[in-house]
């Protein structure tokens, strides 16, 4: 696995980020950088704040304190500037969140046409290429509810890629899938990583982390406890909490 290009500024930079849900302190002093072309996997027990971290990067969750930059630009307040920035940040959700009233092709075309002002035929052609790439071009005219979970998640990845994002965020992309469909989604993600896409992936898939990640970030109780290369994390975790976590995961 080749080392990521050390380009400046980092694609994602989080400095001193705090967030509360009421009395719950879900993000505690998060400092994290993801370099261009780097694949970072975020691990941790449920409730550790890893999903919130992922969602705060494109401000689906506003933060209380600290700063977040995407490719050197601080996250703007709610409004047009934020919409423009989100267009450059692809996001894949645990529940797919495909637009239920639109066909798969329409799902992929919508944002390029509305946000990038690309003509409909052009957007359709690009959409079909992407759907071919994730292996579901034959499902283009169906509605999301007619597809399997794995197919829906691949369509969601195609929808995000259609905006030609600088970085992709994955929020537990395989957690809602039946076991036999996990692999088809992971394959798409792995090939994306190989192509040099900058990715931040919140997941429980240890295999993916070992195979595709440049770095593993381990979170617990809203804090980043470890930040290391996969080999070191999986073979010699430094913290007690990471050892506990791995012990539970790997014995199952």
């Amino acid at each position: 696995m080749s080392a990521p290009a050390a380009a400046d500024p980092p694609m994602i930079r989080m400095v001193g980020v705090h967030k509360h849900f009421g009395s719950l302190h879900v993000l505690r002093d998060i400092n994290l950088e993801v370099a261009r072309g780097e694949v970072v996997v975020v691990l941790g027990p449920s409730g550790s704040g890893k999903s919130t971290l992922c969602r705060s990067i494109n401000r689906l969750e506003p933060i209380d304190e600290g700063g977040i930059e995407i490719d050197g630009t601080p996250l703007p307040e709610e409004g047009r500037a934020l919409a423009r920035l989100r267009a450059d940040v692809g996001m894949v959700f645990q529940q797919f969140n495909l637009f239920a009233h639109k066909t798969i092709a329409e799902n992929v075309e919508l944002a390029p046409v509305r946000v990038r002002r690309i003509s409909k035929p052009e957007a359709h052609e690009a959409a079909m290429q992407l759907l071919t790439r994730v292996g579901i071009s034959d499902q283009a005219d169906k509605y999301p509810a007619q597809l399997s979970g794995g197919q829906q998640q691949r369509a969601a990845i195609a929808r995000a890629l259609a905006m030609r994002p600088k970085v992709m965020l994955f929020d537990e992309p395989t957690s809602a899938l039946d076991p036999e469909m996990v692999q088809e989604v992971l394959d798409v993600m792995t090939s994306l990583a190989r192509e040099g896409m900058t990715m931040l992936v919140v997941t429980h898939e240890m295999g993916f982390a070992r195979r595709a990640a440049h770095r593993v970030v381990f979170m617990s109780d809203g804090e980043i406890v470890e930040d290391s290369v996969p080999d070191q994390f999986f073979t010699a975790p430094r913290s007690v909490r990471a050892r506990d976590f791995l012990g539970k995961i790997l014995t199952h």
Partner: protein
Amino acid sequence: MDIIFDNIGLYRDGFITTLQICLYAAVGSLLLGTVIATFRVSPLPPLRAAGTAWVTVFRNCPLTIVLFFCAFGLPELGIKGAYFWFGITGLVLYTSAFVCEAVRSGINAVAPGQAEAARAVGLTFTQSLRDVVLPQALRSVVPPLGSVIIAMVKNSAIVGAFGVGGDLFSVQARLTSAQGLSLIPVLLGVALGYLIITIPAGLALGVIERRVAVMR
């Protein structure tokens, strides 16, 4: 029955006037109500406050008072116009508050993930509402909106008291008091006229409801 047939021309004119009032008022209140609903779910606090204030005022005021303000308040402010349009304005203001609440409940019924996904691909608030949330919201909202519009058709009977000449309900006053005919048969004719509007409207809603259900 003779009373109705002898005065069929008067009934027909009244029916057409009421139908016109209802069509204009329905289109107006559906559009305005949807806009107010978008205000109420907007991320901007001033718009949310404006939307809430609108609904609070117009949903809680008797229609008669709203019509009073349109027919007599607007001229007081120097706004001159036909009572026909003042009456429609009153109906639209009043009905829009109910349309707004129906649409808003529909918006709230759309899974939050839909709006999140729309924002995440870079759609603005307006775009995500127009392209993603509203089309899905409007489907679940067809039955309550239907009730709102049918109620509006019946409410339109009041505009005759506010200078809108010749609507279906005012036919009653011309035939009974001015011409001295008996009230009950005359009113049966008026009721029939309203049913000719409201029953097909209800049937059409059923059809629309089934069509959007298939598209889902």
